[in-house]
């Protein structure tokens, strides 16, 4: 649910990075943060445990430039991946405008990917959203690892609906901006539809 402010002529949108524990959600945000011009970004906040696992969320505000005289601002959030942090995940999905699902390509994480995808659907439903109606992009992360599952197999199990998807290696930045751009585009296109 974007926030349109006519007074400051800004559109604010919320994008949430979802996915199983250690799949690279925070790494995506860190890469974006490191590669973005300081004028365009705010402070990145990480509410993490002592072992640097996300406890509540990571948050990164980004400005993307003007559209029809309005500044576009995107608030990027990650959720904690571990199964037991479900309460935090639900809260962060409130008011979401676009979702990125970061899948861990390692073959032994396939079950965790599927579990997280199911959890995403359930939690969105609880907020009154349907995954099919929210701008949604899938990222297959860690493609560089030797134990990565074949892309076709991942698509079959995680993306039966055929939404836009990207291969990535977030530690070196491959696919990170492509994923973000596709999601931001989806969110803005949705805004256009809402505008009638």
């Amino acid at each position, binding site marked *: *649910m*974007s*926030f*349109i*402010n*006519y*007074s*400051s002529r800004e*559109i*604010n949108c*919320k994008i949430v990075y979802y996915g199983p524990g250690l799949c690279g959600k925070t790494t995506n945000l860190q890469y974006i943060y490191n590669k973005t011009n300081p004028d365009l970004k*705010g*402070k990145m*906040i990480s*509410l993490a445990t002592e072992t640097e696992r996300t406890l*509540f*969320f990571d*948050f990164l*505000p980004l400005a*993307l*430039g003007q*559209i*029809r*005289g*309005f500044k*576009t601002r995107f*608030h990027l*959030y990650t959720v904690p991946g571990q199964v037991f942090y479900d*309460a*935090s995940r*639900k*809260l*962060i999905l*409130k*008011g979401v405008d676009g979702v990125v699902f970061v899948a861990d390509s390692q073959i032994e994480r396939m079950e965790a990917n599927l579990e997280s995808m199911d959890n995403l659907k359930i939690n969105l439903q609880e*907020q*009154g*959203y349907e995954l099919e109606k929210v701008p949604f992009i899938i990222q297959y992360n860690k493609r560089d690892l030797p134990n990565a599952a074949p892309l076709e197999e991942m698509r079959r199990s995680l993306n039966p609906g055929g939404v836009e998807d990207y291969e990535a290696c977030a530690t070196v930045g491959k696919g990170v901006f492509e994923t973000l*751009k596709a999601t*931001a*585009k989806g969110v*803005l*296109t949705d*805004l*256009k539809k*809402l*505008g*009638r």
Partner: protein
Amino acid sequence: MMDTQLVMYDEDYRKILAVIQRLVRDANAKGIFVVDKNGQLIAEAGEVRGIDTTSLASLTAGSIAATGGLAKIIGEEDFPVHFHQGQRDNLHITLVAGRMILVVIFDDRSSLGLVRLRVKKAGAELARIFEEIQKKAENPESAGAGASPFAEITDDDIDNLFSD
């Protein structure tokens, strides 16, 4: 039920600003913020320079969401009032109209009692303004808001954002 999109026009913003500017004076507060429950900053007043307002907004919303979760665990609907005491500065946080969050920063030039008293009145005024905003969002035509400027967005406009 999905929330309707939040749209704030200049006149709404001015009304909100007038209420919180008065609250800064009446409550002897340092600074005041109005934040949407989803973490968007709506308005600010007082001595707010040097404060990272975007972070403040998202963390306030996160904190309200987390304590709301706590409330439900013990059988409460919500905790509408929060108070955080610091060495110098304190935070008084109130949920307004179930959707907006009013954040008051104050130091020893004021007191918790005074802030609570003044926030009660200002909160009621803000609640009325938010109700109007909500009504307009549900009925954009009757509010005379006109067509959304985003109906005209082209694919090129969107592509241009990313042409770096």
